[in-house]
């Protein structure tokens, strides 16, 4: 099932957004314009976008610390995302969350979690509300190969399978958890773990091919939407940069040849060529798209620069929804 040209072009557009957004953000962090730290999805764009494009607007997702790609892949406006990374009042979370905790309820992004694995049952809960309220929506949980060793994933898979909840568990296997090679701490194959719960466990060997990811994600999403319950999809991919920007490790935990192999399979370059080969677009159209996205990024940075820093009193807002008087506020 080949997606329409429009869909394929949108895939490339979103992958470009992630790539250029993260490249810009990395520069800004280095220049001290973004506080704290950020984790880029550079190299993993096909895995993120292939999965997100399988979702409809009403569908929900919850993610992790490597958080920019998920809302962008789901269609978030870039300005408020960039403003959030900088800590501005115009940030999508009003400057309260920052990079690891992006959320954009306008597009169904329920929230990224800086605590690995912690958001997995949140996505299951969104699937439960859909089932109980009879709303036609699916949720997707993004987590890494490292988080896949957290027990809460298996509790969540078991619960979702027992209740036939419309949720997709999507493992972003970039082969490493920070400095730790997956093979050294992960026994067996993550996607094989689905079998023990009687649900489909799908392995996408080539996570750099956005169409392969999209196809696997669509199958899982359709199954969920049809009321047949959850699936576990494991996508093999690679991050091109260090775990987090600014992190300096003197230990070479990644093999140069391995890295070279994956870098040579850059998802944007691959799909750009494919679009041209398929006659979906020509070189000129691609150049135009790249310019268009570059402009979007500039706009996003402008938006962020134009946004003021939050007022101090906002630090004391949004803890509770109901009116609440805090003891000993300082």
């Amino acid at each position: 099932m080949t997606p329409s040209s429009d869909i394929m072009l949108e895939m490339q557009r979103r992958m470009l957004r992630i790539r250029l957004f993260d490249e810009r953000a990395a520069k800004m962090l280095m220049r001290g314009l973004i506080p704290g730290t950020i984790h880029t999805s550079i190299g993993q764009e096909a895995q993120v976008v292939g999965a997100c494009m399988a979702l409809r607007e009403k569908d929900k997702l919850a993610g992790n610390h490597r958080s920019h790609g998920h809302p962008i892949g789901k269609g978030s406006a870039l300005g408020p995302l960039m403003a959030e990374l900088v800590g501005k009042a115009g940030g999508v979370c009003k400057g309260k969350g920052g990079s690891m905790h992006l959320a954009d309820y306008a597009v169904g992004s329920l929230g990224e979690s800086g605590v690995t694995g912690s958001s997995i049952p949140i996505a299951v809960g969104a699937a439960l509300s859909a089932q109980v309220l009879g709303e036609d929506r699916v949720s997707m949980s993004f987590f890494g190969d490292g988080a896949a060793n957290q027990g809460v994933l298996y509790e969540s898979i078991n619960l979702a399978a027992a209740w036939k909840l419309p949720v997709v568990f999507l493992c972003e296997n970039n082969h490493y958890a920070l400095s730790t090679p997956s093979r050294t701490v992960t026994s067996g194959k993550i996607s094989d773990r689905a079998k023990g719960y009687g649900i489909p466990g799908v392995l996408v060997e080539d996570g750099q091919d956005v169409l392969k990811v999209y196809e696997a994600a669509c199958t899982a999403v359709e199954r969920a939407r049809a009321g047949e319950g959850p699936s576990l999809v494991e996508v093999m991919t690679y991050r091109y940069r260090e775990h987090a920007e600014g992190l300096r490790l003197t230990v070479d935990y990644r093999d140069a040849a391995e890295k070279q192999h994956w870098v040579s399979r850059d998802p944007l370059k691959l799909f750009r060529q494919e679009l041209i080969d398929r006659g979906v677009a020509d070189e000129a159209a691609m150049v135009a798209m790249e310019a268009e996205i570059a402009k979007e990024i500039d706009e996003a940075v402008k938006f962020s620069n134009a946004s003021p820093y939050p007022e101090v009193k906002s630090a004391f807002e949004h803890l509770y929804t109901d009116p609440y008087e805090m003891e000993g506020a300082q």
Partner: protein
Amino acid sequence: MSMMTYIAAIGAAQREAMAADKRVIIFGEDVEANVYGTTGGSKTRAEQGDFVQEFGRSRIRNTPIAEEAMVGTAIGAAMTGLRPIVDLSYSNFLYMAMDQFVNQAAKNRYMFGGQSSIPVVFRSAMFYGLNTAAHHSDRPYPMFMNVPGLKVVVPASASDAKGLLRTAVDSNDPVLIFEAVPLWGLKEEVDENEYRIPFGVARVRREGEDVTVVAISGCVPLALAAAEQVASTRGISAEVIDPRTLVPLDTKTILDSVRRTGRLIITEPAHRTCGAAAEIAAIVVEQAFEALRAPVLRVTAPDMQIPFSPVLEAELYPTADKIAAAITRVCSNKPFSADDPAKGAVP
């Protein structure tokens, strides 16, 4: 009005909440079979009155034994339209889901700049004094008081249990209710009609002039008994205040009382260090220091785990006698003046 037990009042509140709002669902281990007595007509399953039959399996669900996923699923469901009540049975099992309580329930609304509301109720029962030993006897509510974003409720009577649970379900923020199993069988006049008891409003269980006794959860009846005891034996008039909710805490009622009585005892079933009693003592010595005429004493469980053997466990909790002794001490006729060394010896 009718006489109702504490546990029956919880069941009644759950039934009302389920009937009133389709977004309310209940899940937890063994709730379908009404094992803990709050999801059926009564502790024994009456043909009618059974929640499964009344509300259906979509809204009342047995869960796997997986507290972390259970709690996280409830949070996610609350963020997307439901108002779940999660029955965690024993308070000892909350630890399994600690990450979800602290990193998700308490933080999501704040981290996301107010985009989400998390209307979810987590019920658990403090089974203590029943010879179930350290794995089934914890009273862990103080550690949740140190987590901003959660509300902490500790009903001490049937009517409070019902009204506070309804308010909890109405709350748009996560609420943890800690029920006191030693009070499950206690009866009180309860209104069969719907009613709410607001959070942050203490209940003055007994008025008095000489000393303020703030009593929490299972210690409320003990404090009342102690108050009667010192009244008859020593003519001491003790005021007994049940805060009912610890977050938010009704500091005004407590401070006003201490400003009148000048003396304060706090009694609770939790461990001593960093308990609710410590917090209340700290608030009072900050905000009503001028009124204090005597040391503030805490009557709590010591910093010790709970032993199984009845002869040992009995020693560990506050009793009416221990509370009465503390009251007597701070009310000893010895006048307390800033330079009276005797006072130092009080505790």
